């Protein structure tokens, strides 16, 4: 079996050997694609929206409403970040449909996003409660719970990133295992062409590539919103 991590090649920049992995290349392709898409949707905007503009307005309105419902009116400034994260994550997983390696099946990607959210949560917490209140929050409800509180602080980015990574990578592994099994079945039946691989992997692809990709992007953004929203509430309110 050959389930591998992303391939990479090395480039020589000023005497330093820099490893450029498949994930980075795919990531930049997605960035270019999203930029082109957004520019296409929003150029030449009118008071009375055209079809293109309506799609862009629909995206913005949906995200704004979701952020408003989940985080409240004070945290509307986070809406662009959430929309970016959602789009990047969604296309990062959906790119598997066109045969590229999904960007989110690399743990580096999801860990980066989880760490972004993590540091944002800490910053919001300090901003809302002050540095004293932030440190005091670790000794709640009783002082000897402090080690446990510190452990649970670091568990949240790990679980957030493993969830997204595990779902996409798991889908990849399961699809590959099914392909191997069906190819083996065709060989056992004496077919020269693996006819048994027609059909069944497509059903799996709908679940793992389409449903799981949309679901995980939504859940990642939703949990980020919940974490940041709850950190941004100060204790007094």
């Amino acid at each position, binding site marked *: 079996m050959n389930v591998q991590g992303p391939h990479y090649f090395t480039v020589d920049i000023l005497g330093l050997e820099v490893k450029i992995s498949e994930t980075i290349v795919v990531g930049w392709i997605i960035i270019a694609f999203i930029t082109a898409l957004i520019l296409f949707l929003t150029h030449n905007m009118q008071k009375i929206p055209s079809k293109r503009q309506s799609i862009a307005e629909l995206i913005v309105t949906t995200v704004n409403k979701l952020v408003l419902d989940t985080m409240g009116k004070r945290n509307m400034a986070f809406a662009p970040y959430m929309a970016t994260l959602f789009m990047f994550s969604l296309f990062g997983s959906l790119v598997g449909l066109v045969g590229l390696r999904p960007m989110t099946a690399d743990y580096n990607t999801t860990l980066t996003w989880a760490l972004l959210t993590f540091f944002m949560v800490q910053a919001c917490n300090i901003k809302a409660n002050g540095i004293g209140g932030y440190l005091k929050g670790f000794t709640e409800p009783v002082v000897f719970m402090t080690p446990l509180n510190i452990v649970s602080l670091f568990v949240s980015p790990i679980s957030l990133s*493993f*969830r997204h990574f595990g779902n996409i990578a798991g889908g990849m592994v399961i699809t590959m295992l099914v392909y191997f099994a069906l190819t083996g079945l065709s060989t056992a039946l004496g077919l020269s062409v693996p006819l048994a691989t027609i059909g069944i992997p497509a059903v799996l692809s709908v679940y793992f590539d389409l449903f799981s990709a949309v679901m995980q992007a939504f859940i990642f953004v939703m949990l980020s919103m*919940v974490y940041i929203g709850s950190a941004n509430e100060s204790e007094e309110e």
Partner: protein
Amino acid sequence: MEKAIVLAASAIGAGIAMISGFGPGIGQGYAAGKATEAVGRQPEASGAITRTMLVGCAVAESTGIYGFVVALILLFINPFIDKL
């Protein structure tokens, strides 16, 4: 020979690690059942209920995902082969 034993043990370990999948299965099924009841009682709140249920399911899934990551590491990275 030793290598074969380590590889076999890793494969068995990966299989055992995947047993962790049944806990989240029960939990998510329970959450989905409760959500169905809630929608039946209050159909107009189905949007909020579905959203909450999905987030809850995602959180309940973490333990299963941890087991899966352990299985992946055992299968494809073979950390114990270097210990020989």
